[in-house]
């Protein structure tokens, strides 16, 4: 006898319940708190289907960084939150409900009647792991087999950051992102803001280091580092960098630049763009992953901080 199906059923119902609550909550802040709970529950779901790498990402980004991004927005909009708009008419809502139900049923049919045998690249991915000196296939896909995608994703992050920065008022260009940090008078809060970052930094570095053979990686580690940096900035323990700073921009670019340099070096030492030499793949992978983690951490932190809203002097 096994009780696991009961556990999974309960978890699935709980996720749906929290998602529903997030949807119908009257206040935005309450909905955001529901969303943070949703992100953590998805972490449990991913653990249930044995995708630990994804569970780490989802818990860190869904519950953590996206949650805080929305939390800040909700807190800023709240003092002037308009009276609830009149809801769209009942007929409209019923029609939309029917449409969404059809989409759900369609997806459910796909889930219930999948193709057999299931398509899988797992064996192909496993084949070259020894040559890369890696044990974690997800890391291998991200950093070796599909390295080009990962590199371009760094570019997407940069484009998003440029988008966020461009939305600031002209007069503050090059200044400090976000508003002045909160004046912390609560000793417990200061304690927490000083306690968490050292733990988080160790954990983030550990996630990067362990990712060669165990779940973890640059995204997960970078996100944890970003969260700790955001906390320190929010509590006023660290001033955010001016977005015009040259050192900052170099840091933002370092991940992509290393990727491109190693990529072109591949032509000379291994016979193709972004291919790794058989002799020392692991050293090169680490060489790419360390600046990549830093870039991810800094970019995510700045994405949450928002556009420049203060002068460099303030």
């Amino acid at each position, binding site marked *: 006898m096994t009780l*696991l199906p009961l*556990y999974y059923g*309960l978890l699935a119902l709980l996720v749906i319940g929290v998602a529903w609550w997030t949807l119908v909550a009257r206040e935005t802040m309450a909905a955001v708190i529901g969303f943070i*709970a949703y992100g953590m529950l998805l972490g449990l779901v991913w653990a249930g289907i*044995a995708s630990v790498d994804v569970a780490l990402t989802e818990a860190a980004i869904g*519950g953590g960084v996206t949650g805080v991004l929305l*939390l800040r927005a909700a807190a800023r909009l*709240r003092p002037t939150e308009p009276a609830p708009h009149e809801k769209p008419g009942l007929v409209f809502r019923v029609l939309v409900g029917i449409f969404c139900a059809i989409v759900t049923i369609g997806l459910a049919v796909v889930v219930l009647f999948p193709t057999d045998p299931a398509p899988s690249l797992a064996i192909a991915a496993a084949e070259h792991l020894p040559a890369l000196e890696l044990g974690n296939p997800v890391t291998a896909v991200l950093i070796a087999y599909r390295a080009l995608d990962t590199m371009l994703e760094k570019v997407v992050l940069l484009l998003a950051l440029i988008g966020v920065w461009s939305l600031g008022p002209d007069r503050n260009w090059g200044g400090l992102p976000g508003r*002045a940090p909160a004046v912390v008078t609560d000793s417990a809060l200061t304690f927490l803001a000083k306690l968490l970052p050292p733990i988080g930094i160790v954990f983030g570095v550990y996630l990067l280091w362990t990712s060669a053979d165990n779940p973890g990686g640059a995204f997960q580690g970078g996100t944890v580092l970003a969260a700790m940096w955001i906390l320190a900035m929010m509590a006023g323990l660290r001033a955010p960098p001016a977005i015009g700073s040259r050192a900052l921009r170099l840091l933002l670019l370092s991940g992509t630049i290393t990727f491109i340099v190693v990529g072109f070096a591949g032509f000379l030492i291994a016979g193709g763009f972004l291919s790794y030499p058989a002799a020392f793949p692991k050293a090169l992978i680490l060489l790419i992953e360390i600046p990549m983690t830093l870039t991810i951490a800094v970019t995510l932190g700045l994405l949450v901080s928002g556009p420049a809203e203060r002068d460099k002097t303030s």
Partner: protein
Amino acid sequence: MTVFLTLAGIIILATVAAGLWRILRGPEDAERMMAAQLLGSGGVAVLLLSAVISGIPAIIDIALSIALLAAFASAAFVLEAFGTRGDEPADRP
């Protein structure tokens, strides 16, 4: 042993669900944020159990990650919703 640990996981998840339902209703946002904290510790407990049940020790790392980010989100919540700033009046609602 596996069955026992699974049962413990189910009971914890069920109580967390009951607690979530109560807290999310509010009325205070701080109380609602407590729901995330409750889910954080309940989730940590369930994940630790499932790390042993499934024999995947890496699941403990998810528990660490959730514990860390739940605390981060709560701290951010208190700072954003209740913190006073230099550039605005202190009596924010």
